């Protein structure tokens, strides 16, 4: 069940600069494990302590997975997954 995964610039070091890769999985969690097996290191950039990282956004068919069950979000053949790091920051951390 291949799913197309759109990879952001910052993570293309793991995908030989490819903007999109295919992966398999019945859930987002499975998909990320499959990505990891072909692109070692990428999982750690997406997942922390068993949850999606706070400042990584993942969308399935344009819907933020946080509204679809997070890592448990179900996937089917032909779904499109987009990974986008948050654009965020601010003075709060101090200089």
């Amino acid at each position: 069940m291949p799913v197309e995964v759109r990879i952001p610039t910052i993570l293309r070091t793991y995908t030989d600069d490819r903007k999109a890769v295919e992966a398999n999985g019945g859930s987002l969690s499975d998909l990320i494990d499959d990505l990891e097996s072909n692109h070692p290191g990428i999982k750690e950039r997406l997942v922390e302590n068993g949850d999606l990282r706070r400042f990584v956004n993942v969308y399935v068919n344009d819907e933020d997975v946080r509204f679809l069950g997070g890592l448990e979000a179900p996937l089917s053949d032909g779904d499109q997954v987009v990974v986008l790091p948050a654009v965020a920051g601010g003075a709060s951390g101090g200089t």
Partner: protein
Amino acid sequence: MLTIDRTTYDGIVAHAKRDHPVEACGIVAGPEGSDRPERLLEMVNAAGSPTFYEFDSTELLTLYKDLWARDEEPVVVYHSHTATEAYPSRTDIGLANEPGAHYVLVGTRVHGNNAGPVEFRSYRIVDGEVTEEEVTVVDALPAPPAPCPENQTSQGNPDAR
């Protein structure tokens, strides 16, 4: 070095002043690999905070899909600091995820919503490493590289836009 046209520069400053004391944020898009900040896109600070900014996740996706459809990228990512120096905070550095972008910081702490000069500084942030760079404001960006001959129009004026 960041080269930016006066209209875009003024637009970023106006946005920062308007939203003060909340941090303003947005990008300037340009053709992929061109290093030309051409299209100012103000974003809503979903955090609505004087010390933090974050693009709304739905608007973020809409933005990037629009950029991809146009073969564009964020050439500039900007936000304001409203009470502190216009220098990247630890948060800014930790969350900087566009290694190719110019990160512009506008400091509004002196004049707030009012007229008056602001700090306008630009940085590269790559792998946690901050490098400040010069900002050059020009009346208009230089003409982009000439298109392939078969794409040229019969107007014969290379400056036509």
